[in-house]
């Protein structure tokens, strides 16, 4: 029996999920990625799925299969568009039914019936569309296959067909109706009467007050919300309108009573959950078209042979519209910590972020950046990125660095991936080196994969668990950064003065600028 398209079993879908993003989330720019992925999908409340990495490899594979199948345009097309409307409708149905059934007895108000009719019309259209779409497909993923079977059975039921035809007849008759309303504020009285053509009032009044207009002031005309503040009042109006159109309103009442439970929990849940896949696929599609590779990673529960080929920072890829250099890494036991050094502006931070991102995304069960990947299934990712000096906490920079490092190490488990970016930059080299060694010792003792970005090249050969990676410059032109990152011993060269020159900030250049 089908339950959820995100979890193979009902039990696995009931585990608690995270509702907020963490600081590390921000450091890795996952917030930018998720924000873009969930753009225009606020309605579906996908946050908790994107904020909650999975711990069960079976669930990850269930999702990978569904996502892989949704990449086929035909499958996607059959579902998309249909389900969005259902999700919107879902928010109101329970409340609506409660209003129409009072103490087990049908006794609705006309306005609620109006809402009901609107939702029934939407729902039946969507379900028919879905079922027709599935007919011509040979679905392979467990999640989608079981759902298609479910919809097909639902759609051909006699009850459903009858409901759908009735709703369409009703709507047509209401579109033709018109009426007049007289509002009298002084005695709080409303009158309803048949519609007849009248003269416009607006021009005469505007002219009367035109003398007040002067200078540049705001326009106070409003875009008016036509939803009633008081449904009670709207209902009273409808009660009066119903006397002008008795046959139509009687039929409406009968329709609602007969079709009270036209919607279906499983379909509603599917409509919401499927958006998780759509949002992610839509998000990576432009990047794929720009030639960036994505893959479904192998998931490992031990640190043995881990790797990623042609991996990249998704957030940066967004900013550069896919113009980005890809890089890979591999760790073979006992290797565990990547120490990344080399020229600045060579893509170190970017690489560190992509390392964190791929671990996180793999645990969501989505397609991840890279051509091929074998990834460690971690319980969390903790980061240490530089923070702007903040007067509120009244502490110095180095102290802040150390305090946060201590907190990070305390929170890390043997399954926690750690990303550390340029720590101890606010003290002297000598100091930083001593502190850096303490830090590596602590990371080794934890045992999970980690990456440390640092200008302290000495750390890369400090223990056997560390692997040195460096940013490179191209051979022909030392000024140019290639953004390639390779396994290599640090060569001690950095290129800061060339960067200064690029900004026109060498002595001679700056002198010329100030003379100007």
């Amino acid at each position, binding site marked *: 029996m089908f339950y959820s398209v995100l979890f193979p079993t009902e039990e696995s879908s009931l585990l608690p999920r995270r509702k907020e993003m963490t600081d590390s989330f921000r450091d890795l720019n996952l917030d930018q990625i998720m924000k873009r992925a969930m753009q225009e999908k606020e309605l579906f409340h996908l946050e908790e799925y994107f904020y909650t990495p999975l711990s069960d490899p079976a669930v990850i594979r269930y999702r990978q299969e569904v996502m892989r199948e949704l990449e086929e345009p035909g499958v996607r097309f059959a579902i998309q568009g249909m389900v969005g409307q259902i999700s919107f409708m879902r928010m109101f149905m329970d409340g609506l039914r409660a209003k129409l059934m009072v103490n087990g007895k049908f006794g609705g108000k006309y306005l609620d019936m109006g809402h009901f009719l609107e939702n029934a019309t939407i729902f039946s259209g969507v379900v028919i569309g879905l079922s027709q779409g599935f007919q011509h497909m040979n679905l392979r993923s467990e999640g989608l296959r079981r759902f298609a079977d479910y919809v097909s059975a639902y759609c051909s039921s006699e009850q459903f067909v009858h409901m759908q035809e009735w709703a369409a007849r009703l709507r047509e008759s209401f579109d033709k109706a018109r009426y007049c309303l007289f509002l009298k504020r002084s005695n709080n009285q409303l009158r309803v009467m048949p519609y007849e053509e009248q003269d416009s009032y607006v021009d005469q009044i505007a002219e009367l007050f035109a003398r007040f207009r002067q200078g540049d002031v705001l326009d106070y005309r409003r875009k008016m919300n036509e939803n009633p503040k008081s449904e009670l009042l709207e209902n009273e109006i409808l009660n009066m309108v119903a006397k002008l159109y008795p046959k139509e309103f009687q039929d409406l009442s009968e329709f609602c009573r007969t079709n009270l439970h036209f919607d279906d929990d499983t379909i509603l849940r599917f409509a919401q959950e499927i958006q998780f896949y759509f949002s992610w696929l839509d998000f990576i599609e432009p990047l794929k078209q720009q030639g960036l590779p994505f893959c479904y990673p192998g998931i490992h529960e031990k640190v043995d042979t881990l790797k990623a080929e042609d991996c990249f920072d998704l957030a940066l890829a967004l900013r550069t519209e896919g113009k980005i250099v890809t890089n890979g890494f591999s760790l073979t036991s006992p290797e565990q910590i990547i120490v990344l050094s080399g020229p600045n502006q060579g893509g170190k931070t970017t690489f560190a972020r992509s390392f964190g991102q791929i671990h996180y995304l793999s645990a969501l069960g989505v397609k991840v950046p890279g051509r091929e990947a074998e990834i460690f299934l971690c319980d969390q990712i903790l980061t240490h990125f*530089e923070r702007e000096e903040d007067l509120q906490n009244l502490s110095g920079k180095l102290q802040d660095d150390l305090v946060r490092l201590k907190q990070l190490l305390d929170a890390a488990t043997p399954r926690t991936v750690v990303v550390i970016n340029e720590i101890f930059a606010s003290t002297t080299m000598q*100091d930083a080196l001593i502190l850096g060694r303490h830090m590596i010792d602590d990371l080794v003792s934890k045992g999970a994969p980690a990456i440390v970005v640092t200008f302290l090249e000495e750390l890369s050969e400090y223990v056997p668990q560390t692997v040195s990676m460096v940013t490179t410059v191209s051979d022909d032109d030392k000024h140019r950064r290639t953004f390639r990152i390779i396994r290599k011993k640090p060569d001690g060269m950095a290129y800061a003065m060339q960067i200064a020159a690029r900004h026109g900030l060498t002595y001679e250049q700056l002198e010329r600028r100030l003379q100007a």
Partner: protein
Amino acid sequence: MNVHLMLPEGAPAPENLLTLCKDSLKSDLELNVILDSISGGDKAMRVSCMTAIFAPLQSLELIDYRHEVLKDAIAHPEVVRALYDLCLEAENRRKTTTHWMTNYYLSTTFSGAIEYLINFTETLVKLRKLAEENEAGFHSVGFLHLFRMLREELPDSYIEKVKNQLTELSNRDGFLVSARLGSYLQGTDYVLQRRQKKLLNLDFLKGQSYNLGKNDDPGSEDMTARQDRAINEVTNALAQAAEHLASFFDLLRTELAFYVGCLNFMDQMKAAGMPTSIPTLTPADGTGRLWEEMYDVSLVMLKKCAVTSNSLVSEHKKLYLVTGANQGGKSTFLRSFGQAQLMAQCGMPVGARRFTAPLRKAVFSHFKKEEDRWMTSGKLDEELDRMGRIANYIRGGDLLLFNEAFSSTNEREGSEIGRQITEVLVKYGVEVFSVTHLHAYAIAFQGRDDVQYLRAQRLEDGSRTFQIQPGEPLETAFGEDLYKKIFQR
């Protein structure tokens, strides 16, 4: 009607600092803390003070003009606050009694505008009375102009005219609209219809009717909303008239707010036991600086108690290099200095017992930043990019504040870049204050007469006094101390 508390009649508005400067100064010098504190949640006051701070005056005469107004304010704080309160009263009534500018219901905008127009006339009368009673004790050109204007340019006839206009608003008893049935049968497409005479006869009264219950609040709200949908256009004209009349109070409030902000500042510092003073500005070519008991105003505001202050007299210095222990008060010192220079140059009092400074054309700051969240560049690149943009605009006569600049690369490289940039800036007449832990950079200027070395003080036992005193750079920092303390090893 114009107000001249900030600038004499005919004086052009001072130039604003570049957005480049403002954005960095605001965060680097914790100006938000200061502005929040002196404005106490008063947004308009915050804006006034911020605008002034970011438009430094370039002549001693203009600064004197504000100092004269400020001295009047200090001598008669109760009058100045009372004037300000009247401006607030006019605005608060508008906001709190009706929200008429932005209310959901147009009928509220409608009645709110009328109500505000009535209040407006009352407050004008009070304002004029206050001016007449207190004019004698004031001496500054700015205040005397204001008081005279209130007397002479708001005659009774003007107020009468406003009142007459209010009586024109007629009583409309009922609105007729046509409607359709919307997607869920709600009424839509309301169009206001003219009631024709035949509708007033018996045919009309025969229509079905519904009367709201006495306590049906949502129903009453709803009816108002429906009425709004009918009267959208009419209300527009009325609200626009009221808005126009409100703008004078905004103008007066904006200028008074600066001086009330100054008073608040002095009161807050006094409460914390810290001195303030009206600073002495010298011409732009002045080479001497003096600060006595100068302190970080934002820090006092956060801690709400006295903090460390620093003093120095210098002559013919062009570069100030500050080194020393982490957490030794270097950033705090740099902030305190930047704050004092900016506040002095807009006519505000400053956080020091005495402060003498030359006029500076513009003030730039370059503080170490958090990793660039948008990754358009690496860290050193980001720093140099900011420096490059500063270099597009900075010229002799400006002031630049460096805090841990060029520290995103290693010490050797950072020092070399920093040395070259600093040397050129100083050579071309930019005054530079530079806080650094780059040792090689710091010692590169040793032996020069125009360089003032300052150092965060550290006692024999390793404790810090947070004092910044004249002193050459020392080699070591103190990271290991901190490590032991935090990791307890």
